[in-house]
Protein backbone atom coordinates (compact mmCIF):
# COMPACT_ATOMS: atom_id res chain seq x y z
CA UNK A 1 0.00 0.00 0.00
CA UNK A 2 1.32 3.40 -0.91
CA UNK A 3 1.56 5.86 1.98
CA UNK A 4 -1.91 7.32 2.55
CA UNK A 5 -3.31 5.02 -0.10
CA UNK A 6 -6.35 2.86 0.27
CA UNK A 7 -5.98 -0.86 0.89
CA UNK A 8 -6.75 -2.73 -2.29
CA UNK A 9 -5.93 0.18 -4.61
CA UNK A 10 -3.44 -1.94 -6.45
CA UNK A 11 -5.73 -4.89 -6.95
CA UNK A 12 -8.54 -2.60 -8.14
CA UNK A 13 -6.19 -1.32 -10.83
CA UNK A 14 -5.17 -4.86 -11.61
CA UNK A 15 -8.48 -6.75 -11.58
CA UNK A 16 -11.18 -4.12 -11.37
CA UNK A 17 -13.46 -3.00 -8.54
CA UNK A 18 -15.75 -5.99 -8.45
CA UNK A 19 -12.96 -8.54 -8.22
CA UNK A 20 -11.38 -6.49 -5.45
CA UNK A 21 -14.63 -6.50 -3.47
CA UNK A 22 -15.81 -10.01 -4.27
CA UNK A 23 -16.10 -11.27 -0.68
CA UNK A 24 -17.33 -7.94 0.63
CA UNK A 25 -20.19 -8.05 -1.88
CA UNK A 26 -20.92 -11.71 -1.11
CA UNK A 27 -20.98 -10.93 2.61
CA UNK A 28 -23.33 -8.01 2.18
CA UNK A 29 -25.58 -10.21 0.05
CA UNK A 30 -25.45 -12.89 2.75
CA UNK A 31 -26.21 -10.45 5.56
CA UNK A 32 -29.03 -8.77 3.67
CA UNK A 33 -30.47 -12.03 2.35
CA UNK A 34 -30.73 -13.50 5.84
CA UNK A 35 -32.30 -10.28 7.07
CA UNK A 36 -34.56 -10.37 4.02
CA UNK A 37 -35.76 -13.86 4.93
CA UNK A 38 -36.77 -12.60 8.36
CA UNK A 39 -38.41 -9.49 6.91
CA UNK A 40 -40.27 -11.28 4.11
CA UNK A 41 -42.85 -12.45 6.65
CA UNK A 42 -43.81 -9.21 8.33
CA UNK A 43 -43.34 -7.03 5.21
CA UNK A 44 -44.54 -9.25 2.37
CA UNK A 45 -46.49 -11.94 4.17
CA UNK A 46 -44.14 -14.64 2.88
CA UNK A 47 -43.44 -16.69 5.98
CA UNK A 48 -40.28 -18.66 5.22
CA UNK A 49 -38.60 -17.77 8.49
CA UNK A 50 -40.30 -16.75 11.72
CA UNK A 51 -38.71 -15.20 14.78
CA UNK A 52 -35.39 -13.39 14.83
CA UNK A 53 -31.68 -14.10 15.17
CA UNK A 54 -32.07 -15.25 18.80
CA UNK A 55 -34.32 -18.11 17.75
CA UNK A 56 -36.22 -18.87 14.59
CA UNK A 57 -38.32 -21.46 12.86
CA UNK A 58 -37.77 -22.00 9.14
CA UNK A 59 -40.59 -23.41 7.00
CA UNK A 60 -42.28 -24.59 10.17
CA UNK A 61 -39.75 -27.38 10.75
CA UNK A 62 -36.17 -26.16 11.18
CA UNK A 63 -35.48 -24.59 14.58
CA UNK A 64 -32.37 -22.43 14.93
CA UNK A 65 -31.31 -20.91 18.23
CA UNK A 66 -28.37 -18.70 19.11
CA UNK A 67 -26.21 -20.85 21.41
CA UNK A 68 -24.98 -17.83 23.38
CA UNK A 69 -28.54 -16.76 24.18
CA UNK A 70 -29.27 -20.31 25.28
CA UNK A 71 -26.12 -20.28 27.41
CA UNK A 72 -27.55 -17.22 29.16
CA UNK A 73 -30.78 -19.13 29.75
CA UNK A 74 -28.82 -21.94 31.41
CA UNK A 75 -26.78 -19.43 33.42
CA UNK A 76 -30.04 -17.89 34.65
CA UNK A 77 -31.13 -21.26 35.98
CA UNK A 78 -33.74 -22.29 33.43
CA UNK A 79 -33.58 -25.53 31.49
CA UNK A 80 -34.95 -24.83 28.02
CA UNK A 81 -37.31 -27.03 26.02
CA UNK A 82 -36.17 -29.39 23.31
CA UNK A 83 -36.84 -27.07 20.36
CA UNK A 84 -34.30 -24.53 21.61
CA UNK A 85 -31.73 -27.23 22.40
CA UNK A 86 -31.98 -28.79 18.94
CA UNK A 87 -31.86 -25.36 17.34
CA UNK A 88 -28.72 -24.43 19.24
CA UNK A 89 -27.06 -27.75 18.40
CA UNK A 90 -27.64 -27.19 14.68
CA UNK A 91 -26.19 -23.68 14.89
CA UNK A 92 -23.19 -24.94 16.90
CA UNK A 93 -22.37 -27.62 14.33
CA UNK A 94 -22.75 -25.14 11.48
CA UNK A 95 -20.32 -22.62 12.96
CA UNK A 96 -17.87 -25.33 13.98
CA UNK A 97 -17.74 -26.18 10.28
CA UNK A 98 -17.60 -22.75 8.68
CA UNK A 99 -15.86 -20.76 11.44
CA UNK A 100 -17.43 -19.24 14.54
CA UNK A 101 -17.00 -15.65 13.58
CA UNK A 102 -18.56 -16.24 10.20
CA UNK A 103 -21.54 -15.16 12.30
CA UNK A 104 -19.87 -11.77 12.68
CA UNK A 105 -18.89 -11.14 9.08
CA UNK A 106 -21.59 -12.98 7.14
CA UNK A 107 -24.69 -12.71 9.35
CA UNK A 108 -24.50 -9.98 11.98
CA UNK A 109 -26.08 -6.67 10.88
CA UNK A 110 -23.90 -4.67 13.28
CA UNK A 111 -20.95 -5.68 11.08
CA UNK A 112 -22.31 -3.44 8.34
CA UNK A 113 -22.37 -0.55 10.81
CA UNK A 114 -18.86 -1.13 12.16
CA UNK A 115 -17.42 -1.75 8.69
CA UNK A 116 -18.91 1.59 7.65
CA UNK A 117 -17.36 3.26 10.68
CA UNK A 118 -13.99 1.70 9.86
CA UNK A 119 -14.26 2.83 6.23
CA UNK A 120 -15.03 6.39 7.29
CA UNK A 121 -12.30 6.28 9.92
CA UNK A 122 -9.82 5.35 7.21
CA UNK A 123 -11.10 8.00 4.81
CA UNK A 124 -11.01 10.72 7.45
CA UNK A 125 -7.59 9.58 8.66
CA UNK A 126 -8.73 9.20 12.27
CA UNK A 127 -6.01 7.48 14.25
CA UNK A 128 -5.55 6.19 17.76
CA UNK A 129 -8.20 6.40 20.43
CA UNK A 130 -8.97 4.49 23.61
CA UNK A 131 -6.54 1.72 24.29
CA UNK A 132 -8.48 -1.18 25.72
CA UNK A 133 -7.40 -4.76 25.50
CA UNK A 134 -8.93 -6.97 22.83
CA UNK A 135 -9.33 -9.52 25.62
CA UNK A 136 -11.96 -7.26 27.21
CA UNK A 137 -14.59 -9.20 25.23
CA UNK A 138 -13.74 -12.41 27.10
CA UNK A 139 -14.07 -10.62 30.40
CA UNK A 140 -17.41 -9.26 29.24
CA UNK A 141 -18.51 -12.69 28.08
CA UNK A 142 -17.73 -14.08 31.52
CA UNK A 143 -19.35 -11.09 33.21
CA UNK A 144 -22.67 -11.36 31.36
CA UNK A 145 -22.96 -15.03 32.30
CA UNK A 146 -22.10 -14.31 35.93
CA UNK A 147 -24.60 -11.44 36.10
CA UNK A 148 -27.29 -13.72 34.66
CA UNK A 149 -26.45 -16.41 37.20
CA UNK A 150 -26.46 -13.99 40.13
CA UNK A 151 -29.58 -12.11 39.01
CA UNK A 152 -31.42 -15.29 38.08
CA UNK A 153 -32.61 -13.63 34.86
CA UNK A 154 -31.01 -12.92 31.50
CA UNK A 155 -29.18 -9.59 31.71
CA UNK A 156 -27.14 -9.14 28.53
CA UNK A 157 -30.13 -9.37 26.21
CA UNK A 158 -31.47 -6.18 27.78
CA UNK A 159 -28.63 -4.24 26.16
CA UNK A 160 -27.09 -6.53 23.50
CA UNK A 161 -26.79 -4.33 20.38
CA UNK A 162 -26.54 -7.37 18.08
CA UNK A 163 -29.85 -8.99 19.00
CA UNK A 164 -31.42 -5.58 19.62
CA UNK A 165 -30.76 -4.39 16.08
CA UNK A 166 -31.93 -7.63 14.52
CA UNK A 167 -35.07 -7.80 16.64
CA UNK A 168 -35.61 -4.12 15.99
CA UNK A 169 -35.47 -4.51 12.24
CA UNK A 170 -37.91 -7.42 12.28
CA UNK A 171 -40.24 -6.39 15.12
CA UNK A 172 -39.81 -2.61 15.51
CA UNK A 173 -36.79 -0.53 16.48
CA UNK A 174 -38.05 1.77 19.21
CA UNK A 175 -35.01 3.76 20.32
CA UNK A 176 -32.60 1.06 19.08
CA UNK A 177 -31.37 3.37 16.30
CA UNK A 178 -29.63 5.25 19.10
CA UNK A 179 -27.68 2.10 19.94
CA UNK A 180 -26.73 1.68 16.27
CA UNK A 181 -25.48 5.26 16.24
CA UNK A 182 -23.59 4.68 19.49
CA UNK A 183 -21.77 1.63 18.08
CA UNK A 184 -20.97 3.56 14.88
CA UNK A 185 -19.56 6.53 16.79
CA UNK A 186 -17.66 4.23 19.15
CA UNK A 187 -15.88 2.58 16.23
CA UNK A 188 -15.36 5.87 14.44
CA UNK A 189 -13.96 7.97 17.26
CA UNK A 190 -13.23 5.92 20.37
CA UNK A 191 -11.11 3.19 18.86
CA UNK A 192 -10.48 1.21 15.69
CA UNK A 193 -12.75 -1.85 15.60
CA UNK A 194 -13.64 -1.00 19.20
CA UNK A 195 -16.92 -2.91 19.23
CA UNK A 196 -16.42 -5.99 17.09
CA UNK A 197 -12.70 -6.35 17.79
CA UNK A 198 -12.51 -5.54 21.49
CA UNK A 199 -15.82 -5.45 23.36
CA UNK A 200 -18.54 -7.58 21.79
CA UNK A 201 -19.06 -10.71 23.93
CA UNK A 202 -21.15 -12.27 21.16
CA UNK A 203 -18.11 -12.13 18.89
CA UNK A 204 -15.96 -13.46 21.74
CA UNK A 205 -18.27 -16.45 22.10
CA UNK A 206 -18.26 -17.20 18.38
CA UNK A 207 -14.50 -16.67 18.37
CA UNK A 208 -14.16 -19.44 20.94
CA UNK A 209 -16.32 -21.64 18.72
CA UNK A 210 -14.09 -20.73 15.80
CA UNK A 211 -10.95 -22.04 17.49
CA UNK A 212 -11.88 -25.49 16.31
CA UNK A 213 -13.61 -24.58 13.07
CA UNK A 214 -12.89 -26.35 9.78
CA UNK A 215 -13.15 -23.63 7.11
CA UNK A 216 -10.10 -21.36 7.20
CA UNK A 217 -8.29 -18.64 5.33
CA UNK A 218 -4.68 -19.48 4.58
CA UNK A 219 -1.72 -17.55 3.21
CA UNK A 220 -1.21 -20.36 0.72
CA UNK A 221 1.20 -18.40 -1.46
CA UNK A 222 2.92 -16.48 1.30
CA UNK A 223 6.21 -16.56 -0.55
CA UNK A 224 4.62 -14.15 -3.05
CA UNK A 225 3.91 -11.53 -0.37
CA UNK A 226 5.47 -8.17 -1.21
CA UNK A 227 4.79 -6.63 2.24
CA UNK A 228 2.32 -4.07 0.88
CA UNK A 229 0.35 -4.31 4.19
CA UNK A 230 -3.03 -4.08 2.46
CA UNK A 231 -4.25 -7.22 4.23
CA UNK A 232 -3.22 -5.83 7.64
CA UNK A 233 -4.94 -2.55 6.87
CA UNK A 234 -8.21 -4.16 5.83
CA UNK A 235 -8.36 -7.05 8.34
CA UNK A 236 -10.75 -6.47 11.26
CA UNK A 237 -8.57 -8.69 13.48
CA UNK A 238 -5.19 -8.02 11.91
CA UNK A 239 -3.24 -9.80 14.66
CA UNK A 240 -4.42 -13.13 13.21
CA UNK A 241 -2.58 -12.71 9.88
CA UNK A 242 1.03 -12.43 10.97
CA UNK A 243 1.71 -15.97 12.21
CA UNK A 244 0.42 -17.53 9.01
CA UNK A 245 1.86 -14.95 6.62
CA UNK A 246 5.23 -14.37 8.23
CA UNK A 247 5.67 -17.59 10.17
CA UNK A 248 7.58 -19.51 7.54
CA UNK A 249 10.83 -18.96 9.40
CA UNK A 250 9.36 -20.30 12.62
CA UNK A 251 7.90 -23.32 10.93
CA UNK A 252 4.30 -22.08 11.38
CA UNK A 253 1.80 -23.37 8.82
CA UNK A 254 0.07 -21.14 6.30
CA UNK A 255 -3.42 -21.53 7.76
CA UNK A 256 -4.79 -18.74 9.94
CA UNK A 257 -5.72 -20.76 13.00
CA UNK A 258 -6.95 -18.01 15.33
CA UNK A 259 -10.62 -18.18 16.28
CA UNK A 260 -10.75 -14.42 15.87
CA UNK A 261 -10.43 -14.64 12.09
CA UNK A 262 -13.94 -13.86 10.86
CA UNK A 263 -13.46 -15.57 7.49
CA UNK A 264 -14.55 -12.29 5.93
CA UNK A 265 -12.26 -12.88 2.98
CA UNK A 266 -11.21 -9.26 2.70
CA UNK A 267 -7.51 -10.22 2.75
CA UNK A 268 -8.20 -12.39 -0.28
CA UNK A 269 -9.98 -9.43 -1.91
CA UNK A 270 -7.29 -6.81 -1.38
CA UNK A 271 -4.18 -8.91 -2.09
CA UNK A 272 -2.73 -8.18 -5.50
CA UNK A 273 -0.42 -11.19 -5.21
CA UNK A 274 -3.16 -13.77 -4.57
CA UNK A 275 -1.48 -14.85 -1.35
CA UNK A 276 -4.66 -15.81 0.48
CA UNK A 277 -7.31 -18.41 -0.23
CA UNK A 278 -10.05 -20.29 1.59
CA UNK A 279 -9.00 -23.73 2.71
CA UNK A 280 -9.58 -26.07 5.65
CA UNK A 281 -7.76 -26.53 8.92
CA UNK A 282 -6.61 -29.96 7.72
CA UNK A 283 -4.40 -28.41 5.04
CA UNK A 284 -2.20 -26.98 7.79
CA UNK A 285 -0.25 -30.20 8.16
CA UNK A 286 3.45 -30.57 8.74
CA UNK A 287 4.16 -30.77 5.01
CA UNK A 288 3.63 -27.04 4.83
CA UNK A 289 5.70 -26.57 7.92
CA UNK A 290 8.43 -28.49 6.16
CA UNK A 291 8.03 -26.38 3.05
CA UNK A 292 8.31 -23.36 5.31
CA UNK A 293 11.61 -24.64 6.60
CA UNK A 294 12.70 -25.33 3.03
CA UNK A 295 11.87 -21.76 2.12
CA UNK A 296 13.95 -20.61 5.02
CA UNK A 297 16.90 -22.65 3.82
CA UNK A 298 16.37 -21.27 0.31
CA UNK A 299 16.44 -17.75 1.64
CA UNK A 300 19.53 -18.39 3.69
CA UNK A 301 21.40 -20.15 0.94
Amino acid sequence: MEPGGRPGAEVIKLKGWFAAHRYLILRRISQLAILGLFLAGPLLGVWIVKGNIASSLTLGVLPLTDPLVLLQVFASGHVPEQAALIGAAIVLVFYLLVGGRVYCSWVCPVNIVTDAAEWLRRRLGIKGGANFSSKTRYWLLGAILIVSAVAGSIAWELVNPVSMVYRGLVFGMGLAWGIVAAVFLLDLFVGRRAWCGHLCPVGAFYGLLGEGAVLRVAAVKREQCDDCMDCFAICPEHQVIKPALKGADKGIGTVITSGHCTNCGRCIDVCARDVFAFTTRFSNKSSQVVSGINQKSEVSS
Partner: protein
Amino acid sequence: MAKDAHNPSGIDPSRRRFLTGTLRTAVGVGLVALTLGVYQRQARALPATAIRPPGVGDEKEFQAACIRCGLCVRDCPYDTLRLAQLGDAVALGTPYFEARDVPCEMCDHIPCVKACPTGALDPALADINKARMGLAVVVDQEACIAFQGLRCEVCFNVCPVRGSAITLAYQHNDRSGKHALFIPVVHSKDCTGCGKCEKACILEEAAIKVFPIALAKGMLGRHYRLGWEQKAEAGKALVTPDLPHEYNLPEGVRYEHAGKGLIMGDGRPVRPRPSAPEPPLPPFSSNPLDTLNRKGGL
Protein backbone atom coordinates in the same frame (compact mmCIF):
# COMPACT_ATOMS: atom_id res chain seq x y z
CA MET B 1 13.67 -10.49 40.26
CA ALA B 2 16.52 -8.11 40.75
CA LYS B 3 15.86 -4.71 42.25
CA ASP B 4 17.31 -1.72 40.53
CA ALA B 5 17.15 2.04 40.84
CA HIS B 6 14.51 2.48 38.11
CA ASN B 7 12.26 -0.25 39.43
CA PRO B 8 12.26 0.00 43.22
CA SER B 9 9.38 -2.47 43.61
CA GLY B 10 11.45 -5.13 41.96
CA ILE B 11 8.58 -6.23 39.72
CA ASP B 12 9.48 -7.09 36.19
CA PRO B 13 8.17 -4.20 33.99
CA SER B 14 6.40 -6.46 31.53
CA ARG B 15 4.78 -8.32 34.41
CA ARG B 16 3.81 -4.98 35.92
CA ARG B 17 2.25 -3.87 32.63
CA PHE B 18 0.36 -7.15 32.39
CA LEU B 19 -0.96 -6.89 35.94
CA THR B 20 -2.05 -3.25 35.68
CA GLY B 21 -3.58 -3.91 32.27
CA THR B 22 -5.50 -6.91 33.56
CA LEU B 23 -6.64 -4.99 36.61
CA ARG B 24 -7.82 -2.10 34.46
CA THR B 25 -9.87 -4.41 32.25
CA ALA B 26 -11.26 -6.29 35.24
CA VAL B 27 -12.36 -3.11 37.01
CA GLY B 28 -13.90 -1.69 33.83
CA VAL B 29 -15.81 -4.86 33.08
CA GLY B 30 -16.77 -5.17 36.75
CA LEU B 31 -18.39 -1.74 36.64
CA VAL B 32 -20.26 -2.65 33.47
CA ALA B 33 -21.42 -5.90 35.10
CA LEU B 34 -22.61 -4.06 38.19
CA THR B 35 -24.59 -1.59 36.10
CA LEU B 36 -26.04 -4.43 34.08
CA GLY B 37 -27.07 -6.27 37.24
CA VAL B 38 -28.82 -3.21 38.65
CA TYR B 39 -30.54 -2.61 35.32
CA GLN B 40 -31.70 -6.22 35.21
CA ARG B 41 -33.24 -5.88 38.68
CA GLN B 42 -35.14 -2.78 37.59
CA ALA B 43 -36.24 -4.43 34.35
CA ARG B 44 -38.23 -6.95 36.37
CA ALA B 45 -40.68 -4.27 37.48
CA LEU B 46 -43.55 -4.88 35.12
CA PRO B 47 -45.77 -1.85 34.48
CA ALA B 48 -49.34 -2.34 35.68
CA THR B 49 -50.80 -2.25 32.16
CA ALA B 50 -48.35 -4.77 30.66
CA ILE B 51 -49.81 -8.27 30.64
CA ARG B 52 -47.68 -11.32 29.87
CA PRO B 53 -48.90 -14.03 27.48
CA PRO B 54 -50.45 -17.26 28.83
CA GLY B 55 -48.17 -19.65 30.68
CA VAL B 56 -46.04 -17.04 32.45
CA GLY B 57 -45.76 -17.28 36.20
CA ASP B 58 -43.04 -15.51 38.11
CA GLU B 59 -41.55 -12.53 36.25
CA LYS B 60 -37.98 -13.34 37.32
CA GLU B 61 -38.24 -16.91 36.07
CA PHE B 62 -39.84 -15.70 32.85
CA GLN B 63 -36.94 -13.36 32.22
CA ALA B 64 -34.55 -16.25 32.82
CA ALA B 65 -36.21 -18.35 30.14
CA CYS B 66 -37.43 -15.89 27.47
CA ILE B 67 -34.89 -15.43 24.66
CA ARG B 68 -36.90 -12.65 23.03
CA CYS B 69 -37.25 -14.41 19.67
CA GLY B 70 -40.82 -13.28 19.06
CA LEU B 71 -42.11 -16.65 17.87
CA CYS B 72 -45.10 -16.29 20.24
CA VAL B 73 -45.82 -12.90 18.68
CA ARG B 74 -45.71 -14.42 15.20
CA ASP B 75 -48.08 -17.26 16.06
CA CYS B 76 -50.64 -15.05 17.80
CA PRO B 77 -53.52 -14.98 15.31
CA TYR B 78 -54.97 -11.73 16.67
CA ASP B 79 -51.75 -9.66 16.79
CA THR B 80 -52.30 -9.27 20.51
CA LEU B 81 -48.71 -9.81 21.55
CA ARG B 82 -45.83 -7.50 20.83
CA LEU B 83 -42.16 -7.39 21.80
CA ALA B 84 -41.00 -4.60 24.06
CA GLN B 85 -38.85 -2.12 22.18
CA LEU B 86 -36.01 -0.04 23.55
CA GLY B 87 -37.67 2.77 25.46
CA ASP B 88 -40.72 0.74 26.56
CA ALA B 89 -41.08 0.18 30.29
CA VAL B 90 -41.16 -3.61 29.77
CA ALA B 91 -37.90 -5.65 29.73
CA LEU B 92 -36.40 -5.27 26.25
CA GLY B 93 -37.58 -7.74 23.64
CA THR B 94 -40.01 -9.63 25.87
CA PRO B 95 -43.61 -10.28 24.75
CA TYR B 96 -46.57 -8.56 26.38
CA PHE B 97 -49.92 -7.04 25.57
CA GLU B 98 -52.02 -4.18 26.83
CA ALA B 99 -55.59 -5.27 27.34
CA ARG B 100 -57.18 -1.91 26.51
CA ASP B 101 -55.45 -2.04 23.07
CA VAL B 102 -55.84 -5.69 22.10
CA PRO B 103 -56.92 -8.27 24.67
CA CYS B 104 -56.11 -11.99 24.54
CA GLU B 105 -58.71 -13.96 22.60
CA MET B 106 -57.91 -17.14 24.55
CA CYS B 107 -57.39 -19.53 21.61
CA ASP B 108 -58.25 -23.13 22.55
CA HIS B 109 -54.99 -24.49 21.13
CA ILE B 110 -52.84 -21.72 22.74
CA PRO B 111 -50.50 -21.20 19.72
CA CYS B 112 -48.23 -18.75 21.54
CA VAL B 113 -47.33 -21.32 24.17
CA LYS B 114 -46.76 -23.97 21.49
CA ALA B 115 -44.44 -21.61 19.58
CA CYS B 116 -42.14 -20.92 22.54
CA PRO B 117 -38.86 -22.79 22.00
CA THR B 118 -37.53 -22.45 25.56
CA GLY B 119 -40.56 -23.07 27.75
CA ALA B 120 -40.68 -19.48 28.95
CA LEU B 121 -44.39 -19.90 28.23
CA ASP B 122 -45.10 -23.01 30.26
CA PRO B 123 -45.83 -25.92 27.87
CA ALA B 124 -47.73 -27.64 30.71
CA LEU B 125 -50.56 -25.15 30.14
CA ALA B 126 -53.02 -27.17 28.06
CA ASP B 127 -56.32 -25.53 29.02
CA ILE B 128 -56.49 -21.82 28.26
CA ASN B 129 -59.08 -21.41 31.03
CA LYS B 130 -56.30 -22.29 33.47
CA ALA B 131 -54.14 -19.40 32.20
CA ARG B 132 -53.49 -16.65 34.74
CA MET B 133 -52.15 -13.78 32.64
CA GLY B 134 -53.39 -11.24 35.13
CA LEU B 135 -56.48 -10.46 37.18
CA ALA B 136 -59.33 -8.10 36.36
CA VAL B 137 -60.10 -5.58 39.07
CA VAL B 138 -62.99 -3.13 39.24
CA VAL B 139 -60.63 -0.30 40.04
CA ASP B 140 -62.98 2.66 39.97
CA GLN B 141 -66.34 2.19 41.64
CA GLU B 142 -67.01 5.90 41.36
CA ALA B 143 -66.79 5.77 37.57
CA CYS B 144 -68.33 2.35 36.92
CA ILE B 145 -71.93 3.08 35.96
CA ALA B 146 -73.18 -0.14 37.53
CA PHE B 147 -72.47 1.47 40.89
CA GLN B 148 -74.64 4.41 39.86
CA GLY B 149 -77.56 2.05 39.41
CA LEU B 150 -77.38 2.04 35.61
CA ARG B 151 -77.64 -1.19 33.69
CA CYS B 152 -74.42 -1.98 31.84
CA GLU B 153 -72.99 -5.46 32.55
CA VAL B 154 -70.81 -5.26 29.43
CA CYS B 155 -67.80 -6.70 31.27
CA PHE B 156 -69.96 -9.49 32.62
CA ASN B 157 -71.28 -10.30 29.15
CA VAL B 158 -68.01 -10.24 27.19
CA CYS B 159 -66.18 -12.38 29.72
CA PRO B 160 -65.05 -15.64 28.02
CA VAL B 161 -65.57 -17.42 31.34
CA ARG B 162 -69.02 -15.81 31.56
CA GLY B 163 -70.85 -16.21 34.79
CA SER B 164 -67.93 -17.43 36.83
CA ALA B 165 -64.95 -15.10 36.37
CA ILE B 166 -67.29 -12.11 36.67
CA THR B 167 -70.63 -12.41 38.45
CA LEU B 168 -73.24 -9.79 39.21
CA ALA B 169 -74.05 -9.05 42.82
CA TYR B 170 -77.43 -7.46 43.37
CA GLN B 171 -77.46 -4.64 45.88
CA HIS B 172 -80.06 -2.21 47.04
CA ASN B 173 -80.02 1.11 45.25
CA ASP B 174 -80.05 3.62 48.06
CA ARG B 175 -80.40 6.56 45.71
CA SER B 176 -83.70 5.56 44.15
CA GLY B 177 -84.72 3.46 47.10
CA LYS B 178 -86.53 0.95 44.92
CA HIS B 179 -84.05 -0.35 42.30
CA ALA B 180 -81.16 -2.80 42.34
CA LEU B 181 -77.50 -2.23 41.54
CA PHE B 182 -75.98 -4.92 39.29
CA ILE B 183 -72.44 -4.91 40.64
CA PRO B 184 -69.70 -6.75 38.67
CA VAL B 185 -67.62 -8.91 40.97
CA VAL B 186 -64.41 -10.60 39.69
CA HIS B 187 -63.43 -14.01 41.03
CA SER B 188 -59.73 -14.83 40.87
CA LYS B 189 -60.55 -18.54 40.90
CA ASP B 190 -61.78 -18.29 37.29
CA CYS B 191 -60.41 -15.02 35.84
CA THR B 192 -57.69 -15.72 33.24
CA GLY B 193 -56.67 -12.08 32.89
CA CYS B 194 -57.48 -12.04 29.17
CA GLY B 195 -58.51 -8.41 29.43
CA LYS B 196 -61.66 -8.56 27.28
CA CYS B 197 -63.57 -6.82 30.07
CA GLU B 198 -61.07 -3.95 30.14
CA LYS B 199 -61.19 -3.68 26.37
CA ALA B 200 -65.00 -3.66 26.35
CA CYS B 201 -65.56 -1.27 29.26
CA ILE B 202 -67.74 1.49 27.86
CA LEU B 203 -66.12 4.31 29.81
CA GLU B 204 -63.61 6.79 28.43
CA GLU B 205 -61.08 5.20 30.76
CA ALA B 206 -61.89 1.63 31.79
CA ALA B 207 -63.23 1.18 35.32
CA ILE B 208 -62.32 -2.52 35.19
CA LYS B 209 -58.66 -3.19 34.46
CA VAL B 210 -56.44 -6.22 34.24
CA PHE B 211 -53.32 -6.07 36.36
CA PRO B 212 -50.44 -8.50 36.76
CA ILE B 213 -51.54 -10.91 39.49
CA ALA B 214 -48.74 -9.84 41.81
CA LEU B 215 -50.27 -6.35 41.79
CA ALA B 216 -53.92 -7.32 41.85
CA LYS B 217 -54.01 -9.98 44.54
CA GLY B 218 -54.11 -9.56 48.27
CA MET B 219 -53.29 -12.47 50.51
CA LEU B 220 -54.60 -13.62 53.86
CA GLY B 221 -51.94 -13.96 56.56
CA ARG B 222 -50.35 -17.36 56.09
CA HIS B 223 -51.36 -18.44 59.57
CA TYR B 224 -54.97 -17.37 59.13
CA ARG B 225 -57.63 -20.06 59.03
CA LEU B 226 -61.26 -19.38 58.26
CA GLY B 227 -63.16 -21.20 60.98
CA TRP B 228 -66.16 -22.17 58.90
CA GLU B 229 -64.04 -23.62 56.14
CA GLN B 230 -61.97 -25.63 58.60
CA LYS B 231 -65.14 -26.80 60.27
CA ALA B 232 -66.69 -27.86 56.96
CA GLU B 233 -63.52 -29.70 56.04
CA ALA B 234 -63.34 -31.53 59.34
CA GLY B 235 -67.10 -32.08 59.51
CA LYS B 236 -67.20 -30.88 63.12
CA ALA B 237 -66.01 -28.12 65.35
CA LEU B 238 -62.28 -28.27 65.83
CA VAL B 239 -61.75 -26.60 69.17
CA THR B 240 -64.75 -27.00 71.50
CA PRO B 241 -67.94 -28.93 70.91
CA ASP B 242 -70.35 -26.82 68.89
CA LEU B 243 -73.08 -26.20 71.44
CA PRO B 244 -76.33 -24.72 70.21
CA HIS B 245 -76.73 -21.18 71.38
CA GLU B 246 -78.92 -21.09 74.40
CA TYR B 247 -81.52 -18.40 74.69
CA ASN B 248 -82.80 -17.73 78.08
CA LEU B 249 -86.38 -18.11 76.97
CA PRO B 250 -89.51 -18.86 78.92
CA GLU B 251 -90.76 -22.36 78.87
CA GLY B 252 -92.42 -23.48 75.64
CA VAL B 253 -90.80 -20.75 73.55
CA ARG B 254 -88.00 -21.24 71.05
CA TYR B 255 -86.09 -19.12 68.54
CA GLU B 256 -86.08 -19.76 64.81
CA HIS B 257 -83.04 -18.41 62.90
CA ALA B 258 -84.55 -18.51 59.45
CA GLY B 259 -86.53 -15.38 60.10
CA LYS B 260 -89.61 -16.40 62.02
CA GLY B 261 -88.06 -15.27 65.28
CA LEU B 262 -89.62 -16.28 68.56
CA ILE B 263 -92.00 -19.21 68.30
CA MET B 264 -94.48 -20.31 70.88
CA GLY B 265 -94.71 -23.92 71.83
CA ASP B 266 -97.73 -24.40 69.58
CA GLY B 267 -95.81 -23.29 66.48
CA ARG B 268 -97.53 -19.92 66.34
CA PRO B 269 -95.08 -17.04 65.70
CA VAL B 270 -95.18 -14.65 68.57
CA ARG B 271 -95.08 -11.68 66.25
CA PRO B 272 -98.37 -11.68 64.45
CA ARG B 273 -98.47 -11.37 60.70
CA PRO B 274 -98.84 -7.78 59.54
CA SER B 275 -102.05 -8.69 57.71
CA ALA B 276 -103.76 -9.84 60.88
CA PRO B 277 -105.13 -6.89 62.82
CA GLU B 278 -103.65 -6.85 66.23
CA PRO B 279 -106.16 -7.38 68.97
CA PRO B 280 -106.01 -4.79 71.68
CA LEU B 281 -104.03 -6.01 74.58
CA PRO B 282 -104.83 -5.55 78.19
CA PRO B 283 -102.28 -3.35 79.89
CA PHE B 284 -100.84 -6.28 81.74
CA SER B 285 -101.06 -9.66 80.15
CA SER B 286 -100.39 -12.87 81.94
CA ASN B 287 -97.85 -13.61 79.19
CA PRO B 288 -94.76 -11.35 79.61
CA LEU B 289 -93.95 -11.71 75.91
CA ASP B 290 -97.09 -9.82 75.03
CA THR B 291 -95.65 -6.90 76.83
CA LEU B 292 -92.29 -7.28 75.10
CA ASN B 293 -93.82 -7.52 71.66
CA ARG B 294 -96.25 -4.69 72.14
CA LYS B 295 -95.98 -1.97 69.51
CA GLY B 296 -94.65 1.33 70.67
CA GLY B 297 -92.52 -0.20 73.37
CA LEU B 298 -93.26 -0.30 77.05
